[in-house]
């Protein structure tokens, strides 16, 4: 088996704006890849193509070496992609159990929901994986009352529940406390230990550096370059990131 996920010559335009141009990207088996780049560099567009949310203007998406045409969110899920979005992707007015099963409710062939099982599974996940111990939180609690870390826990558990092979994390540390951030980074390490793959986007270079096997730098809709984390020091990476933001190239003049 080849790479878990591959983007080949992907371009994406919104009207006249070219968000991505000729992107080539691979995610290997049991690999954590960090995506770094400035605001508007195209990181989010890239992952939205991987998760089937955007359709590319040109290029192909491959899973396990197999080309998948007209990728949609449900199709990407079937290929084992799960996404942890920033906390805003939860439905605040809805209950915890509804949030865990957003968009893929447990249902019979007629579309009727298995509410009992969804609540029971939510309760099990809450106690086993999310670490909710308070009596006040039940599967019927509304997510709007949760803290940033608790919400991120919901988003992560949701991604894991469906046994994904590829976990995509879109700025997952946004709005988290230091403690919660550390938990999140540990979670990414656990993905790796469990033999799965992940794509990790974050503004914080230190976070990306500390959990990724490989770092891909995106700039102005193109891949500017990539490094294996073991080959580069955090200091050099930081220098390079500042340089790329200024010049659009990774090659430092003096180094």
């Amino acid at each position, binding site marked *: 088996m080849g790479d878990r996920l591959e983007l080949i010559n992907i371009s994406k335009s919104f009207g006249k704006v070219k968000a991505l141009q000729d992107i080539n990207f691979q995610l290997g088996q049991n690999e954590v890849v960090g995506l770094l780049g400035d605001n508007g560099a195209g990181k989010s567009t890239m992952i939205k193509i991987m*998760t*089937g*949310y955007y359709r590319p203007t040109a290029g192909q998406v491959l899973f396990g070496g197999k080309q998948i045409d007209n990728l*949609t*969110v*449900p199709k990407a*899920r079937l290929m084992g992609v799960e*996404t942890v*979005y920033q906390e*805003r*992707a*939860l*439905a*605040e*007015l*809805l209950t915890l159990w*509804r949030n865990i*099963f*957003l*968009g*893929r*409710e447990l*249902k019979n062939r007629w*579309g*009727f*929901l298995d*509410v009992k*099982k969804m*609540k*029971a*599974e939510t*309760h*099990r*996940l809450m106690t*086993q*994986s999310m670490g909710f111990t308070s*009596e*006040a939180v*039940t*599967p*019927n*609690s*509304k997510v*709007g*009352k949760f803290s940033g870390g608790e919400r991120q826990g919901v988003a992560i*558990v949701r991604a*894991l*529940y*469906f*046994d994904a092979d590829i976990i995509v994390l879109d700025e997952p540390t946004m709005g988290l406390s230091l403690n919660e951030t550390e938990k999140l980074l540990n*979670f990414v390490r*656990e*993905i790796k*230990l*469990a033999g*799965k793959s992940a794509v990790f986007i974050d503004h914080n270079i230190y976070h990306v550096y500390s959990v990724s096997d490989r770092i891909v730098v995106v700039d102005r809709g193109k891949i500017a370059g990539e490094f294996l984390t073991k080959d580069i020091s955090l200091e050099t990476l930081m220098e390079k990131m500042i340089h790329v933001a200024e010049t659009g190239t990774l090659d430092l003049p003096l180094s």
Partner: protein
Amino acid sequence: MTSKTNEISVDATQAYKDSFNFVNFVRSYGTQLGILGVFFGMWIFFIIMAPNTFLSSNIYYSFMSTIPFFAMMAMPLTVLVIAGEMDLSFPSIMAMGTVTFLLTYNEVSNVWLAFAAALVTGLFIGWLNGIIVVKFGIPSLVATIGTQFFWRGAVLVLSEGHSGTLVYTKETFLRPLLVGKIGDVFPMQMLWLILIAIGSWVLLNRHRFGAHMYLIGDNANSAELMGVNTGRVRIQGFMLVGLIAAFAGIVASLHVTFFWPSQGEGYLLKTLASIFLGGTSVFGGVGTILGSFVGAFMIGAIEAATVAIGWTGFLTQLIYGLIIVLSVIMHTYLGKRLG
């Protein structure tokens, strides 16, 4: 944690039950409890003020006979409003359904075919509303103001402004099926309302369709990220309103065996008032079928009650306004407090 999460442990699955906890119960059902409280308060007030009327069964049979005409439409419309959409064209759809019924009957002389044609018309107009909103991105409030005029115009053109009799339906089984009386007292339209309410509740709370309607109303962006086809689901919501509006139009017309081209016009605000009185949020994501059901009966009862109490009928609208505004304030307050 990563390796275990997808193993569905049967023990844990069976072990969990919603254990009863008063605080959590109030938190979950605060808005329903609130509207029921207002409902019973109002009821007791009516009984005290006009005991002769409100302690006799006649008034309740009368309510069950007239309230379902608009309460029916409040049910699917609640589902649509929960998704953050609005449909103001349902009164015109009612009339369009009946016009279709009349025209089809004139052609084929079969009430069942005419009835089916009316329902198909309702579905079609609902679908068209949905297409305008979803495919052209027009806010539904604006789009359905337009279609409301358009279909009312179509009704006037098709009927040439004339009213029409439906007396011939008296000889068919369709009329007793829709507006007959069980045991000479219980109106069939009340039974239909209950069936539509149960059906809407099941769709909203026990079906993927309702789960997606709640999600779209709460966070449409998230719904799309999670792979929900938000366009298709919303179009289905509009179709449901169209279907039930056409149905309600036929029921209301058969009740009086007569059709007026202005049919449904008086129901617009009553239906909307029922929904908002019942605690459904105009911003979407929040609302219940029970609330709208109770709301409809409150709206329907106020008019009769003002007369029975001996107040001037002019007070009706004033009391409507008062109850609606106070209830909406209550719902907003409860929503913030209970979360």
